[in-house]
């Protein structure tokens, strides 16, 4: 897999602050992967997300998306087209008076011709399963549906990367599921790279790699199985270990001879069953 996005030694400070929000952050993201970025409140996750499509610019270092640099003003708009962000609050990102207008807004901004616009809107709403709602007013939609419309708006611009900036944190469990399933399909079927800023451990577990931020620095980057079995790393970063890892550990304390921690319920049930039928 090739690198689609590179963050090279980026530091960033908000003007009113004395402390750096990001300190010497370096990472790369592979084309087609699902990268979860997690960390405590104030760890720099959302700041990082805003740097990835040039909403914020680094004080030092640079951010490179498919060979384009956010610090190069000529390339910034092209980067914003390629890197779409779904923000946290579904009510703060609806600009149109209907689903159709909302998606059209983004396309108008990029000067897409009308015929092409209609085609792209029809196609993108299908991908998020909102084709029945094209003329619906925003306030009649659920939170999950609004987020799916936001995703359709991004899709219509043919992005390479979708960033979810805690995009499911204000949704109920059903809404969360529907949004994640939508994004998962796009990731699998269209090969769109996903960078998800999240506190949801179960979501992070199912990603390709997990980046843990702690006090503005990258504290770890690796496969979910490596990250989440490192309990001290996780607790130090203000996170929590996933349910199945906790249960694996407690079971061992109770004398069940498990040899390692399991990340998902399915794996743990299987391991317990193997133990039981072998004894």
């Amino acid at each position, binding site marked *: 897999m090739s690198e689609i996005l590179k963050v090279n030694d980026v530091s960033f400070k908000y003007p009113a602050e004395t402390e750096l929000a990001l300190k010497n952050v370096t990472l790369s993201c592979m084309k087609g992967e699902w990268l979860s970025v997690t960390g405590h*409140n104030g760890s720099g996750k959302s700041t990082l997300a805003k740097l990835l499509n040039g909403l914020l610019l680094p004080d030092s270092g640079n951010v490179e998306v498919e060979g384009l640099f956010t610090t190069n003003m000529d390339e910034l708009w092209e980067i914003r087209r390629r890197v779409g962000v779904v923000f946290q609050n579904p009510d703060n990102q609806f600009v149109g008076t209907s689903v159709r207008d909302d998606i059209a807004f983004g396309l108008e901004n990029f000067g897409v011709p009308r015929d092409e616009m209609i085609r792209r809107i029809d196609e993108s709403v299908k991908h998020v399963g909102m084709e029945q709602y094209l003329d619906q007013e925003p306030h009649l939609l*659920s939170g999950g549906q609004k987020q799916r419309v936001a995703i359709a708006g991004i899709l219509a611009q043919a992005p390479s990367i979708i960033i979810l900036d805690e995009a499911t944190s204000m949704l109920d469990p*059903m809404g969360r599921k529907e949004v994640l399933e939508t994004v998962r399909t796009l990731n699998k079927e269209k090969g769109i790279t996903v960078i998800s800023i999240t506190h949801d*451990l179960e979501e992070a577990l199912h990603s390709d790699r997990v980046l843990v931020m702690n006090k503005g620095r990258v504290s770890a980057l690796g496969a979910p199985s490596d990250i989440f079995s490192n309990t001290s790393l996780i607790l130090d970063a*203000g996170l929590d270990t996933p349910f199945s890892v906790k*249960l694996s550990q407690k079971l061992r304390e109770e004398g069940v001879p498990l040899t390692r921690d399991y990340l998902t*319920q399915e794996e*743990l049930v299987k391991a317990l069953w193997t133990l039981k039928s072998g004894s």
Partner: protein
Amino acid sequence: MDIKIRQLEHRYMPGSPYERLALKDISLDISEGTFLALIGHTGSGKSTLIQHLNGLLKPSSGSIAMGDTAWAAGDKKMDMKPLRKKVGIVFQYPEHQLFEETVEKDIMFGPMNFGESETEAKERAKEMISLVGLPEEVSDKSPFDLSGGQMRRVAIAGVLAMKPDVLILDEPTAGLDPSGRNEIMELFYNLHHDRKLTTILVTHSMEDAAKYADEIVVMHQGKVFMKGVPAEIFQQEEKLKQASLDVPETVEFLHKWQAASGERHELSEFTVASLAKALASEWKGGVS
């Protein structure tokens, strides 16, 4: 303060084309000192219900009694201020309601609005800042210079500063990181016991409902769909699914284990530790 709700109905925008029946025939008794979890998917009526408990909304029909204060549909306008002093609501994303120049002033606003002296309000602000786990220095800072998690704590301190008897929490930990979530929930749980509060927690987290609540009320389509202690509620996975809700992870795991192994266990507590104990008994039994 005992809470009695009888045949409560709420209609939004009655008589207009947008009329919507949000609550239907709600009858509930919540005894003083109960920690109640109110669960249900978005639009099930949870938020509408809690707004009735301090008179922010008026019943379309039915009646409510909060301790000695009672009101019913069609009553003349009554002064809700004394009641609102006793019933504190922490709304969703309460940090959006911060407005003062300093953290201290923001926390003092509530008590002073309800007639406390400036000295007393200052005293309470100091107490609450430490209670919610913020450093003393934040007191003179602008609340808008704080991190999201800290702003949340300031907003919570502002509600607690009124020393309510009933505390209503509408998803108080949404958007916080896991350790912040635990800290805030432990804070509410300790306050509930130390100050003998009546607490109503609106939550999407089955884990929190299982861990903290004495009783659970499940709302669905504007009605009370289920009511009982956590053990009763979480035994009924199918019924919860009808209300688009899940069981806690511990219960989910037990069901998966039962399907694989045929072994049955009952949990009285829904913690990972008690689940591990129950499962481990199969091994201890097998060896001897």
